[in-house]
């Protein structure tokens, strides 16, 4: 690649993509963004991601402070460390954005997601679905004679695992909220 035949990482003070320390492995980060709850603010955040080619794995948003008109946006995104840094800096530039926290970097944090799963079936499959739901502490929030709707909360991995188990038992539909996250302590 390099016309100058410089080995990657061989120069201490050089353009960034010669540095091994800068890293080009793809990482997943959870960002919490506090914004003014005003018209178009979500479009600004999403437009930033699409306009600059960043990824959104999951996104949740709701008003968290009625008096202060503040909403909290939680975004799970992936990218190289340099891209993650850019995403945070670019988010910080948006005028109605107050705070940007990288929960993945800031320390231990809790991530939870809620999902609703509609599972159809009769006989032994129906009993098995109910049994597994109990193990996962999922609640049946709606039922008919040939279907259940389960509500499950947990980490995205737990929701994934539960959905995988429900698939052969007659999973019809799934709705997920995306991740909400807070730092611990």
């Amino acid at each position, binding site marked *: 690649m390099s016309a100058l035949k410089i080995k990657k990482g061989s*120069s201490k003070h*050089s353009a960034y993509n010669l540095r091994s320390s800068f890293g080009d492995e793809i990482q997943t980060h959870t960002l919490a963004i506090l914004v003014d709850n005003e018209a178009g603010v979500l479009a600004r955040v999403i437009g930033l991601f699409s306009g600059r080619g960043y990824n959104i794995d999951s996104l949740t948003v709701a008003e968290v402070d009625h008096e202060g008109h503040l909403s909290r946006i939680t975004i799970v995104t992936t990218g190289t460390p340099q891209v993650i840094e850019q995403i945070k800096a670019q988010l910080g530039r948006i005028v109605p954005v107050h705070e940007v926290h990288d929960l993945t970097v800031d320390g231990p944090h809790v991530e939870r997601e809620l999902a609703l799963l509609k599972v159809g079936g009769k006989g032994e499959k129906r009993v098995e679905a109910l049994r597994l739901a109990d193990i996962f502490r999922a609640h049946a929030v709606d039922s008919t004679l040939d279907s259940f709707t389960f509500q499950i909360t947990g980490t995205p991995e737990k929701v994934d695992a539960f959905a995988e188990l429900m698939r052969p038992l007659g999973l019809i539909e799934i709705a997920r909220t995306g991740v909400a996250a807070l730092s611990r302590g």
Partner: protein
Amino acid sequence: MTSHMTGAKMVVQALKDQGVDTVFGYPGGAVLPIYDEIFQQNEIRHILVRHEQGAVHAAEGYARSTGRPGVVLVTSGPGATNAVTGLTDALMDSIPLVVLTGQVPTFMIGSDAFQEADTVGITRPCTKHNWLVKDTDKLATILHEAFHVAKSGRPGPVLVDIPKDVQFASGNYVSGKKVPASEYKPKLKGDIELIKKLVEAIEQSEKPILYTGGGVINSGTAASQLLRELVKSTNFPITSTLMGLGCYPASGDNWLGMLGMHGLYEANMAMHDCDLMINIGARFDDRITGRIDAFSPTSKKAHIDIDPSSINKVIHVDIPIIGDIAHVLDDVLNMWKARGRKTNSAAISKWWAQIDEWRSVKCLNYKNSKKTIKPQFALERLEELTRNRSDRYICTEVGQHQMWAAQFLGFEQPNQWMTSGGLGTMGYGFPASIGVQIAHPNALVINVAGEASWLMNMQEMGTAVQYNLPVKQFILNNERLGMVRQWQELLHGERYSHSWSDALPDFVKLADAFGAKGIMVSDPADLDDAILEMVSYDGPVLFDCLVEKHENCFPMIPSGEPHNKMLLGEAETGDAIGSSGAVLV
């Protein structure tokens, strides 16, 4: 002071409160109430352009030459969409603008009404921020906030979309002083620990270079003064991007000229070989860095910028300092002086000897002709015959002429050079020159243009004539899209696909038709007299300078190559651009 008035009146009142003296605009159905208010007062001057894109570029010219935000007023729908190119241009070059657009009444929004467009949606990615005002009571606060956001931090264009019913309705006006403090407060002072690291690097460096950009100009005249002091007291060499020309005087001893794709050999070589690069208000644009993985491979890099997202965006830096240039340079200078004004002067003398060797290459040399006017020669003569004017302002369009202007004209002061850098907008220069002349009525305002760029906004001749603005349109006419033609020659096997026009107007007759003066010159021997005639004429001049049609712009760093692989002239162009470079623009 709060008082009750209509939304339309509030707009005019808020502009007065903000010290606005000029608005560039074009009326239409959705802004008629505001135009009615403008009609009934004399403090704010409205300049009627001929196209909304012209209004925004004129406001950019006004803003760049004064340091104050430019103000634009246009109608809904097509008025707003025509403004989009100018907004994007201002965003890329960090120019403060406040653009006011009319909108259909709130109760009709979303109904595909006549001249309705989703203006805030369309302009969201091309403004620093924008607002749709749905309540007359909030209008004044939003307008004051709009000026604050446009001017603060890294400046940029903002847009306020005002539905017609909001203009008619009455509400409480809040003056600028009474508006609650804005939440938007970018950091001005740099981190003192990092400034200390930079001072240490300045003390130790053997091969330093200052790489400055438009941020110095945006920071204000104090930043340019501090920069000049820094250069003078350290004897460091200094180069600048296209956007930063004028923050250090071209006549200064330490000036290496512009750097980058068409920058000077000595500037690019010094960037490549330096051991300390201090980036002051520039952004490692791809026109500057060339090939990223071979960009200045042995240097420690410092970067001073008010925008945190500029840091490490393209090039990893060792000393990132987030803050306003003037604040940071003041701290750097004070600390450096307090620590004994140390530099490695012996090594720096050796560095200058090396730079002088590069200078002796005389990279701007070109083969002159007695028969045809070379574009470089035309600019050399323009420079010679107008350099004594301290009130000379230069605008450009985009292309070869722009690069030649940057190479051959010297800028002694900031805010006297207006060019579309980031977006590269053909059609920028003419309306920008109108904005500059409005702000500086007695100054010599010259737009160095190519004939193709100039034609893109030629309707503004009407504006120039109506307001008797003595703007000089210095057209280097090669009957080609020169830069496109150059790339086709170097990259696309000399297949000149659509890079010339077979139907150019007679520019002298065109000037005549608009009621301006036209001058045509084709003989090098007549050039000086023609330029003097242009300068001394009191009114707009269309100067049609017929130049060599196939001249290429050198030096040039071919796409995909590092700084030390410059092409200096025709002989070197062979296979200079590899296939991987050909995909780059």
